[in-house]
C-alpha cells in the first residue's frame, strides 16, 4: 500500500458503497428529494426562449482534456439536445477536444432520433474548435448566428469571460457551470444563472432521476457530510493539542 493513501482509498470505497446502496434503495422506493437548482430549472425556459425567438442556441463545452466535468457537461447536453429536438429549435454544439466531438455527435443524433426527427439532425451543428481557435470561433458563431441562448459548461479557464461577455453582447441569455472556482466569478458576473462546482455533477440526477445518477448524488452528499465531520473532529483534536487524528489521516 502506498503510504499516505489509505484515507483516500477508504473514502473511495465508502463513496462506491454508498453509490450502490443508494441506487438499490432508489430502485426499491423511487423516493428522492433534490433541492431546487435555479440554473437547471432555467434550462427549459432558455430553450423555450430561443424557440419563441426563432434564433439558435449554443452549447459550448470547456476543457483541455476529457475529465469528469466534461462527462457531467455532456449529461446536461443530452437533456438540452432532447428538448431542442422536441421543440425543433436550433442548437450549435462546440466541442473543444477531438474525442469529445464524436461523443457530442452521438448525443445529438440520439436526441433527434428519439424525438422522431432524425432528418432534422445536422452533423455540422457540432463543431470541433480546439485550443485558441475556439476563442475566435465561438465569438464568430455568436455574432454570425445571433444566438439567443448560450450554455457554457465544463472545465473553463480564461475563455469563460470571453464567451460569456460575447454572448451578452449578442443579446443571449446564458447559463454557465464549472467546478473551476477561479472562473466562477466571471460566470456569476456575466451569466443569468451559474451552476457552482458540485451542481454540475448533480445536474444528471436533477434532470433524469436515473438510479445510477441518484446513487452518485447520494455518494457526493455523503462525502460532504464526511468532510464536515472530519473537519469538526480534526478541529477538536487540534485544539486539544492531540495529533492522533492528523497522523491517522496521513497514513
Amino acid at each position: 500500500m502506498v503510504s499516505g493513501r489509505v484515507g483516500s482509498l477508504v473514502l473511495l470505497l465508502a463513496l462506491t458503497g454508498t453509490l450502490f446502496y443508494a441506487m438499490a434503495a432508489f430502485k426499491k422506493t423511487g423516493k428522492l428529494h433534490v433541492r431546487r437548482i435555479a440554473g437547471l430549472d432555467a434550462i427549459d425556459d432558455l430553450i423555450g426562449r430561443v424557440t419563441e425567438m426563432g434564433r439558435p442556441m449554443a452549447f459550448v463545452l470547456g476543457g483541455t482534456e476529457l475529465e469528469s466535468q466534461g462527462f457531467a457537461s455532456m449529461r446536461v447536453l443530452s437533456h438540452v439536445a432532447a428538448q431542442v429536438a422536441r421543440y425543433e429549435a436550433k442548437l450549435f454544439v462546440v466541442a473543444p477536444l477531438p474525442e469529445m466531438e464524436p461523443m457530442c455527435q452521438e448525443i445529438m443524433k440520439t436526441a433527434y432520433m428519439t424525438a422522431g426527427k432524425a432528418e432534422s439532425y445536422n452533423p455540422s451543428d457540432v463543431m470541433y474548435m480546439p485550443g485558441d481557435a475556439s476563442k475566435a470561433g465561438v465569438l464568430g458563431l455568436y455574432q454570425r448566428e445571433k444566438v439567443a441562448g448560450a450554455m457554457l459548461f465544463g472545465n473553463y479557464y480564461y475563455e469563460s469571460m470571453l464567451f460569456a461577455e460575447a454572448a451578452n453582447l449578442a443579446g443571449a441569455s446564458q447559463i454557465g457551470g464549472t467546478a473551476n472556482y477561479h472562473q466562477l466569478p466571471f460566470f456569476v458576473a456575466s451569466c443569468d444563472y451559474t451552476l457552482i462546482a458540485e451542481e454540475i455533477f448533480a445536474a444528471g440526477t436533477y434532470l433524469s432521476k436515473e438510479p445510477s445518477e441518484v446513487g452518485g448524488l447520494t455518494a457526493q452528499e455523503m462525502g460532504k457530510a464526511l468532510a464536515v465531520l472530519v473537519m469538526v473532529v480534526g478541529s477538536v483534536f487540534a485544539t486539544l493539542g492531540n495529533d492522533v487524528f492528523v497522523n491517522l489521516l496521513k497514513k
Partner: protein
Amino acid sequence: MKREGPRLVALVTGLIVLIGHFFTSAPIKAASAEIVRWRIIVAAFALALGGFNMLRLHGNKISQKRPNWQYSIIFVVAFVAYFTLGVTTSTTSPGYKYIWQNLYQPAASTMYSFTLFYMASACWRAFRIRNWQSGVLMVTGAAVLLGQVGLGAAISPAIPKFSAWVIAVPNAAAIRAITIGGSLGMVVMSIRVILGLERTYMAGGKD
C-alpha cells in the same frame, strides 16, 4: 457490443490505474504506467480524427458553397500547408517556428487581450448596486482592488489589512468549500465512468 466494448475498456483500464495509484505491486504499477502512456497515443489518434473532421466539414462547405465558404478555403490551405511543413521539416525548423511565432502567437495574444475589455464590461454590470448583496460585492471588490495597489495604503492603512483579511478568511473558506464539493463530484463521476454507469457519451446513454 458498440456500448459494451468501451465500458469494458473503461472498467479494466480504470481499475488497473486506480489499483496502481494505491498499491505498490510492481506488475500493476508497470501496467498502470503503460496505460497512461497509451493514453497519449490514443489522444494523438483523436487529434487526427478531429483534424480530419474539420477538413471534412470545411471541404463540404466549400463544395456546397455554403455562406462564408471563402473562409473555409483559407482554413484548408493553412491547415494543409502548415501540416505539410511540420511533417516534411520539423516542428523546430525555422520556417515552422517563424509562422508559429509571427502568425499564431500574435493572434492568440490578441484574443487573450480581449479579456480585459470583456472583464470591464462584466464588472460594470456586476458592480451596479441593485440590492444590498450587490452593494457588499461592490464595496468588498473595491477594497480588495485598492488593497493590492499602493493607492489603497495611501488612503488608509486599514484598506490593505482588510483586503488581506478578505482574501485569507472568507475568500479562502468559500474556495475550499467549492473545491471540496467539486472534488467529491469529480470522484463520484469518475467512479461512474469506470464502472460503466455513466453512459451519456455512448449514443447519448440510450441502450
